[in-house]
């Protein structure tokens, strides 16, 4: 499917402001701002300009409050760890204590969400290619992937994360369901197969991320009724012949 830009100048605007550029600006601007871990989220207090950059790159959601000076942003584990570990532009604290050690942060997140390693690998795989990822919950999937900012373009892919021992799409009705849902919102279903790291021991370190491999696969449904045109011949479509068509005396 071709990207669906939301308004006439949207594509041009996207070209003029590539995501990679916004991310670099964000990296510089945040300069080790501190975020605090709270259950499965990270809360970040930032200046209005930083909030604007975070929004431009689609990290986090604004927490509306009466506070005037700072803006509060809420980040998911994937977003927070990406800013912390990959972009290295934020610090993380847990109950007032700063977590300098990457391993401590990693272990904390894993303890809250056992599937975090696989999900983070999938998230960072697409993020590092400059795709914008947001929660896919509204569409019954893990993420939705945008080519640029959601205000400019509709998301093209609904993303499901699969790992070796996952139960996703194991029966046909799951496939029907996921594909139909995606199609009804004009997206292509994309599965990210994350493999590697069969040794559980390694998962204790964020460096295990390097041992993972991500393979992308799209799943789509084909309708034979709609695809019968043969460009080579000019003859009309043959009439459908099936048993029910035949007259019975």
């Amino acid at each position, binding site marked *: 499917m071709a990207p669906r830009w939301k308004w006439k100048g949207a594509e041009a605007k996207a070209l003029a402001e590539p995501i990679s550029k916004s991310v670099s600006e964000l990296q510089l601007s945040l300069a080790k701002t501190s975020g605090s871990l709270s259950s499965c989220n990270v809360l970040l207090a930032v200046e209005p300009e930083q909030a604007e950059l975070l929004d431009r790159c689609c990290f986090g959601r604004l927490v509306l409050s009466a506070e005037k000076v700072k803006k509060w942003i809420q980040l998911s584990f994937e977003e927070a760890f990406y800013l912390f570990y990959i972009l290295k532009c934020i610090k993380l604290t847990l109950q007032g204590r700063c977590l300098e050690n990457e391993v401590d942060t990693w272990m904390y997140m894993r303890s809250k969400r056992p599937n975090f390693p696989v999900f983070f690998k999938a998230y960072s795989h697409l993020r590092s290619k400059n795709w914008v990822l947001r929660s896919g919950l509204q569409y019954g999937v893990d993420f939705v992937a945008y080519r640029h900012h959601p205000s400019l373009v509709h998301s093209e892919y609904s993303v499901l994360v699969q790992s070796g021992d996952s139960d996703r799409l*194991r029966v046909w009705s799951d496939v029907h369901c996921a594909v139909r849902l995606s199609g009804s919102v004009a997206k292509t279903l994309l599965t990210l197969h994350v493999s590697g790291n069969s040794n559980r021991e390694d998962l204790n370190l964020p460096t295990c991320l390097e041992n993972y491999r991500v393979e992308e696969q799209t799943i789509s449904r084909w309708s034979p009724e709609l695809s019968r045109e043969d460009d080579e011949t000019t003859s009309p479509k043959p009439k459908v012949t099936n048993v029910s068509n035949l007259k019975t005396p």
Partner: protein
Amino acid sequence: MEEEDWEASSSSETEEAGFAADDDEEFNAGPKLQFRIGSSKARWVTELGMAEVEVKRGKLWTTTGIIRSGKTYCFIEEALYLSEIGELQILGDDDAVIPLKGLYEMIAEEKSGCCWESYEVYRYLKGLGYILGRHGVPWTSKGAEIMTPSGEEEDSVTKLLGDMQLCDARAVFDVYLPNSRFKKSSPGEPSFVACLSGDSPPSKEDVRVLQSRIDAPLRFCHISQGRVSFFSFSSIDLSVLP
């Protein structure tokens, strides 16, 4: 035995050039034997697991059956489909017409390379005008290269069995778009290859293994309660954006 006079199906009524109108008249050769006007005839050959076509009626034979040493043979799914739509009568050893019941039983035996699910795929797509051939079976033989249909059939069946051991999914039919100028002598590349993966969707590995052997796009069929759905599982690599 069906007594009804099936009226013309929507496929072409005109006879192929070269086939005389000798068999036009209807006659009763005995209580079990009836010849229908406009109906082709084929004889089932158990050793081959195929039917040898003896009388051809209509243009449907340009897109059905394989040609070996100048003769046309059809597989059980082709025979059954044509019988269902009243275009073909299959004769058994005793010269009696094998009724639909008998043909369904042959499908159930699964000894002729086609199970019920494969047949549903065949019937559904044929009914929409697509052209189907068994994957791995050439439409025609080229001179003396191929010995007998059974020899070839065994090769492809053995090959299919061998493939099955490595992978739960298997390729079943080469599917071509509807084409009134289709030629068995040069069919071209199929539009896609229909595959079955059994009771579950294919694993990523199975898709990879099959796609590595087959050049054409693959579509996996899910057959359930008479409904056939087709899914593509395609490896991609999303581009790096600016």
